[in-house]
């Protein structure tokens, strides 16, 4: 393993970031909301004849995705910028730790929170789904993996914005990108002719902006369609490299930022 001193410090920051998040009781509220939604999906399942387990799965995975995204965007906006504003960042950065390690540590701590949320909510949903007689399908786990990836991409987008704009604007921009990343899919682009300016722009959309629709496989999952392993892997690769590029960009911007 490559546990150098530097990695160790990233983990230290991550640990205390997660501690602070835990102690601020966000996770407690998340679990509470998760239980509430589960109850709602249970009621909804009761009313849907025959396919209760599918409703539970649909509803459960949908809320999982939404809640993870909401945490990621709303709390990610303040992850670094709150530290700059409240000047707590001076305490950490006056220690022997590089800005990049600090940033990665903070994101990792936030990542733990996102993953905790995903694990808690999805085990509730899946437990319930199996209890209702649903069958486990590998696509469920791919879907959960993509949700985590999507949340991390949102996290770094909102962090990037928050380093150059204020918090409210960052949240709005990121939310907009989230929506349009889902809306601008292949079917949507096909509606415009490529020669029209709009079609031309839309075709280029995904060169720069995240194609969240690629990470959305819920419809395949719900209607028991199969997806090729290669396709799943390629999608994972797309998300991963998009995330990596974003991380590098955020590190670059943060490294050069004046903290005053």
């Amino acid at each position, binding site marked *: 393993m490559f546990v150098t001193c530097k990695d160790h*410090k990233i983990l230290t*920051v991550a640990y205390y970031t997660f*501690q602070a998040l835990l102690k*601020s009781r966000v996770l407690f509220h998340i679990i509470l909301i998760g239980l509430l939604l589960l109850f709602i999906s249970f009621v909804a399942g009761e009313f849907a004849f025959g396919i209760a387990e599918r409703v539970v799965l649909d509803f459960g995975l949908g809320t999982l995705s939404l809640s993870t995204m909401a945490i990621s965007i709303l709390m990610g906006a303040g992850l670094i910028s709150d530290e700059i504003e409240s000047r*707590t960042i*001076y305490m950490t950065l*006056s*220690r*022997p730790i590089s800005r990049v390690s600090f940033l990665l540590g903070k994101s990792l701590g936030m990542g733990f929170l996102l993953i905790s949320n995903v694990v808690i909510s999805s085990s509730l949903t899946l437990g319930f789904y199996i209890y209702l007689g649903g069958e486990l399908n590998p696509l469920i786990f791919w879907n959960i993996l993509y949700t985590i990836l999507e949340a991390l991409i949102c996290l770094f987008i909102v962090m990037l914005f928050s380093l150059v704009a204020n918090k409210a604007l960052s949240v709005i921009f990121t939310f907009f990108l989230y929506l349009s990343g889902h809306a601008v899919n292949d079917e949507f682009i096909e509606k415009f002719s490529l020669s029209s300016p709009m079609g031309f722009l839309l075709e280029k959309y995904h060169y720069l902006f995240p194609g969240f629709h690629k990470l959305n496989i819920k419809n395949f999952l719900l209607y028991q369609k199969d997806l090729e392993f290669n396709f799943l892997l390629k999608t994972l690769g797309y998300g991963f490299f998009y995330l990596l590029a974003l991380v590098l960009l955020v590190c670059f911007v943060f490294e050069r930022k004046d*903290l005053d």
Partner: protein
Amino acid sequence: MLTLKGITKIFRGHFLDSISRKRGLFTALDGLSFTLGEGEAVGLLGANGSGKTTSLRVIMGFTKADRGEVLFDSKLGPMGRDFRQNVGFLPERPYFYPDLTGRDFLCFMGALNGMSRKGIRKSIIEWSERFKIDFALDSKIKIYSKGMLQRIGLCSALLHNPKLLILDEPLSGLDPIGRKELKDAIREVNRQGKTVFFSTHIIQDVEEICEKVIFIEKGKLLYEGAIDKLMTSGESFYEFKISKRSVGKNFEWNGNTLELEDFLIITVSGEDRLAFLKKLIDKEIDIESIVPIRSSLEEIFYKVKNREGRICL
């Protein structure tokens, strides 16, 4: 220990700048140079907005200077090693992770400095008792008062036994007893060989703690050197408080006089003070007290500045 060479920092601010005469650009530091020697206690003195915090931020690398450089002694770490390992820093109006407890926060800071768990534990006990914050270590920082924040900040700055201590207005927000404790603590760590550099706008603080002072105004260095020299430069005055009853009719003096019910307060210039004292003794007048008049920051400022804005002593 530390040398600043011609540091210039320009903010793209919003108010009119007197130096560049351009709106939007503000020169917060203007070719600032000074040196801290090893083992010295140095006060960074300046009025509000003179650039104290900005210069400390440049030293710590939080903001980049537009011109100039900060040089660290090899004692703060051999070439290539991080100087921050041997620096303890306390920002202005410090604030910490509100949801962590004081102990968690100190452990966090110690871990970032690469301290062992045992070392951290020992250091926390030592410094939290020294600064009387040990009783609150297990409550969330959210509920700390201003003085408690200042104290836990100092613990964290000293936790890893740094060689250089940089404190931005460490005494602000403390009550008189707290100020005294803290001044004693700063003197003590300085005696143990740590270099101390702290900013303030209260000249008495510098006088009580340091031998050396760096005085800045509008981002420019006005004076760097011994504090006594700055204090005693120019004209000085003494206030004599004498008993009214013991003063005879034919007692004459030149000096400002204030009449109280039982006493007279007479202000005498530094040159005349001995002659005046002799006169008082000759006439057997009761002396209640003799107090040298402390100059305020502004008075010293006008005293030491000549037309070109340079210090002349």
